[in-house]
């Protein structure tokens, strides 16, 4: 039985005890507490592949779910001013309690028609041009930028290539590396490849406990290196794409703890934790003089990588 299956089994048990408690008036609260702790423990042992399944879970909260939980004001603003309003990326003006921020998030969509409308969170170049337009608006007004990542990757299609997916992503990296406002990146679910990285450059990188962040999808990696897409589990684990892996690598700053079973099991709790972390980070970042912040950002980016010399 995999860790994942064990957790599912324990969750079933909890449900059983809960109904016992309600229907038969048997007091089993203590048992439930113990089982939940057990689940939390097991969670720490989830593999990268388990996390991948969690990150893609059908019930997992999406960016638009977080919006009302995090912000008391949110006004979407649209458009790249050039070609199309890409619905896979949502931009907005927002208030995080009293602090004004600009928000850019990737949205995968909820039901089937919404998923299609959002192109499953896979942006075309116009999505990335929109983010550049909006981040410059944020820069003009000195507003901190909050980026939320949740995408299988940039869309691989004819139109996307025609309109220069490569330039659009590169320009995002270029702009974010030097834009003169504080940036906080949160990886909510799937951090897929260059399409995620395009919104992944900032001063502080947060990652939900069950999110993943990878150079290539496990399936893609398996197809190439195992010559068998069904070897995604091996690939995922070999790629080390969990939040705990990335924390160990020193790449992300903070893991946002999720409730046992994932953010969707107690979304309010997950969103609260995220909000608290973003606020803490923001409070620190806004105090840093902007030139110093840019130096820190550059140094952080510069240090990414492991190699030997001589």
């Amino acid at each position, binding site marked *: 039985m995999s860790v994942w299956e064990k957790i599912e089994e324990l969750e079933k048990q909890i449900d059983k005890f809960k109904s016992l408690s309600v229907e038969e008036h048997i007091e089993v609260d203590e048992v439930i507490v113990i089982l939940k702790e057990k689940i939390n423990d097991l969670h720490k042992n989830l593999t990268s592949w388990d996390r991948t399944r969690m990150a893609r879970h059908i019930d997992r909260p999406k960016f638009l779910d977080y919006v009302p939980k995090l912000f008391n004001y949110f006004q979407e603003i649209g458009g790249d001013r050039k070609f199309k309003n890409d619905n896979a990326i949502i931009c907005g003006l927002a208030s995080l309690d009293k602090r004004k921020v600009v928000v850019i998030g990737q949205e995968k969509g909820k039901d089937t028609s919404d998923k299609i409308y959002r192109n499953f969170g896979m942006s075309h170049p116009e999505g990335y041009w929109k983010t550049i337009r909006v981040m410059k608006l944020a820069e003009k007004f000195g507003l901190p930028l909050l980026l939320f990542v949740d995408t299988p990757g940039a869309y691989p299609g004819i139109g996307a*290539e025609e309109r220069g997916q490569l330039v659009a992503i590169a320009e995002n990296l270029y702009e974010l590396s030097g834009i003169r406002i504080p940036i906080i990146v949160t990886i909510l679910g799937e951090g897929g490849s260059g399409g995620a990285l395009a919104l992944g450059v900032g001063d502080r990188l947060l990652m939900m406990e069950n999110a993943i962040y990878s150079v290539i999808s496990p399936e893609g990696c398996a197809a190439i290196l195992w010559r068998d897409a069904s070897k995604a589990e091996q690939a995922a684990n070999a790629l080390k794409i969990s939040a705990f892996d990335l924390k160990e690598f020193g790449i992300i700053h903070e893991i946002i703890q999720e409730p046992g079973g994932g953010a969707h099991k107690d979304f309010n709790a997950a969103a609260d934790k995220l909000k608290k972390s973003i606020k803490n980070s923001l409070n620190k970042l806004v105090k840093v003089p902007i030139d110093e912040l840019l130096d820190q950002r550059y140094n952080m980016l510069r240090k990414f990588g492991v190699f030997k010399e001589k």
Partner: protein
Amino acid sequence: MTAWLKKSILKKKEPDNQWIKCPDCAEILYKNLLIDNINVCTRCGHHFRLSPDGWLGYLVNRGTFKEINENIQSVDPLDFSDAKERYVDKLNRSMKKTGMKSAIITGVGKIGKQKACLGIMNFAFLGGSMGSVLGEKVARLFEHAIELSLPVILISASGGARMHEGIYSLLQMAKTSAAIRKHSEAGQLYISIMTDPTTGGVSASFSALGDIMIGEPGALIGFAGPRVIEQTIKQKLPPKFQTAEFLYDHGMLDMIVNRKELKSILIELLTFFG
């Protein structure tokens, strides 16, 4: 003399009686003549891939090239193995095969009367994939160019990310882009030359950020690989899709330059901006 230079000289001593068939016009080409013609088909002009030593021999004034950061080497941060072998073994094989320590050579040399920082990728080294070393050498190249107030010319050839290094590989896109911004803010020129193939993470980071972007004729250039796109959209791709010519038409390149004219174009550009 660096290892790869020795190796390249050794290569020249290999038996000469080798023939290559041109994939475009099917002409059978005598290998040495092809090398003399900087790997351009003498019949139809097809551009074969050119190795870093080929590029250096063609572009850079003899004896002026000084390699930098030649001793940076890959490690295996994930302890990665795929179905067949360990990443470290794969690395060792590639190093032996190519005589290089990474997929790029960086340094300073003279082209015509102009000094420039140069980066030349080697597709033969694990498909020119970008890992920590490639990213580090590119970033250092631009930082070196800032220090010396020099332009950068970077010749790309890459199949994408070095998956074996996982997230480190992806992050090189951000690292190199940030270094290019510093170089640009210092007012320096960056010419990006995209050769066959330039795809994936390399294409969507430093390759796409040139002040001037040049493509080689017929080169495959794109972000997503053609096969991935075909699988996604479930239809055949149009002819010429993701060629340099396609990118030029769509406004992504400043020009497409035949390899034979590239040197003089570069000299003119370096002089113009110099």
